[in-house]
């Protein structure tokens, strides 16, 4: 029997995997974007789970908005990355270093 905690555990695990990937295997900016996308989708899964089990639609509608915004975000992020690639000829994370943090 799959219950609410299972879904929530999955959502948290996906979120953790995304966050882990962001800080662990950082060699390529595209991979970082994928990790971020995973984190967003994990949050969406949590929303849908809570909404479905509470019988409330608001959370599911929220996910529609998040998906749309995430698409816009990905479009802009890739455009900026393309701009960066044109200037630097690389999208390796190590090439993000002319500005030191």
């Amino acid at each position, binding site marked *: 029997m799959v219950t609410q905690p299972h879904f*929530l555990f999955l*959502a948290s695990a996906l*979120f953790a995997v*995304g966050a882990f990937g*962001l800080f662990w295997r950082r060699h390529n*900016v595209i991979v*970082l*974007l994928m990790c*971020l996308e995973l*984190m*967003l989708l*994990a*949050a*969406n899964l*949590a*929303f849908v*789970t*809570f*909404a479905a089990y*509470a019988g*409330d639609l*608001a*959370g599911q*509608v*929220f996910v529609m*908005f*998040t998906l749309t*915004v995430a698409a*816009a*975000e990905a479009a*802009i*992020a890739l455009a*900026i*990355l393309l*701009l*960066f690639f*044109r*200037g*630097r000829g690389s999208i390796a994370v190590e090439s*993000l270093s*002319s*500005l*030191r*943090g």
Partner: protein
Amino acid sequence: MSTALAAIAPELTLAVMALVLLLLAAVRGQAAARPVLRGGAVALALVFAVLGATAGAPAQSVFGDMVVVDVFATALKMALVLALMAALALSAAPMRLDNIARPEYPIVTLLAGVGMMGMVSAQHFLALYVAMEMQALALYILVSSGASSARSAEAGVKYVLLGALASALMLFGMALLYGATGALDYVTIRTVLEGVDAPGLTVGAGLAFLLAGMAFKISATPFHMWTPDVYAGAPTRVTTLLALAPKIAAAGALARLLFGPLEPLAAQWVPILVVLSVASMSWAALAGVVQGDLKRLMAYSTIGNMGYMLLGFIAGGADGLAAALFYLLVYVLSVAGVFAVILAMRRDGRVVTEIVELSGLARSRPLLAAGMAALMLSLAGVPPLAGFFAKFVVFKVLIDQGMWLLAVYGLLTTVVAAYYYIKVVKVLYFDIPAEPLDRAPARARAAVLAVSVLGVVALLLAPGLGLDVARVAVAPLF
């Protein structure tokens, strides 16, 4: 419906004007750069007039309680519009000099403005999320808009990555709070949370994720990593915008969250804010000392000052929040002038941003140097300038709440941070003059600098006035 539309008239005006200007830009192409910039300024003036006309109207919630329009929202929106105006006005000269005047710039700035105005009015997680993303997406574009500059694109990549991380954290926090309370609107969440004796893991984790996301937006340590790189890499006109407007919007949204739905969790969020505030004040004071680049220095200055602003949130209550709001507005006022000076820094047609480039500016440009010196002293908290008064107010509300230790610690960090502000003054007045900076006529720059310096000095005449305005503005939240 018509009352709902009337309530969001300022946002609607701005959005419609942005679209009209976009159409103009599409038809006329690059030739539209100047008219679009003028149109943008007119749109902001129009919005300011609309805000002024509705400032006294009673508070109302519209769109199924998603959006609230009250004195707090209107006051912050007026501040936002002024900040956007200053940023647009300051952007004209550098874009003309660099031959990169494009109509897209003012349009995207206006769209970011729509998002920021939405943030301070949001009373629902969905409204907050959409508004926040709207301003963030527009700002990502602006940060990377530096003409053929790899640094600008790198700043853009960093901003977009860390900004998306902040959104993801916030979204996860919202999901957890939604699961725990079963609601997305602030009023219901507050009612539910008030009925909970000991908040469970879901609520606690939700709160922590939400606050982490907000801390990114106001660049509080340890979520500040993007700030110095983005400030330094973005074109200076965009850094100006970043330093002014988004901070007002994020602080407004944070105030609505903390003193709205999350008020019952004050015992949980106060310690988190204390950590953020202490870390910001300490790190900014220490790291700011070694900065040689003025834009980077201003990034650390922002981080530190957000720490001081959070002290007002920590003190809590109407007085604490009024102090925080007052602090924020004084800070934004001074920063506008500082960036007006940074934008004047060009030598032989090249942009320079190192502090040493200001050496002996007092000889060649006495007025510019005097203005910069006054603003730096105000940021350092030297009496009797506005910066001193703002810090005094924040520390006073803390002490009134019996938080002596935190106030004393804040005071100590201001002393350390004063070093780098006063160092700039020393460079301006006592160092061997460098080659004089280029002279370019820029009425807008002079106007912004004059308003900023006069504001910072004139507050001396009526120190209570600004604080009274802040008290009136925060009243609807309590």
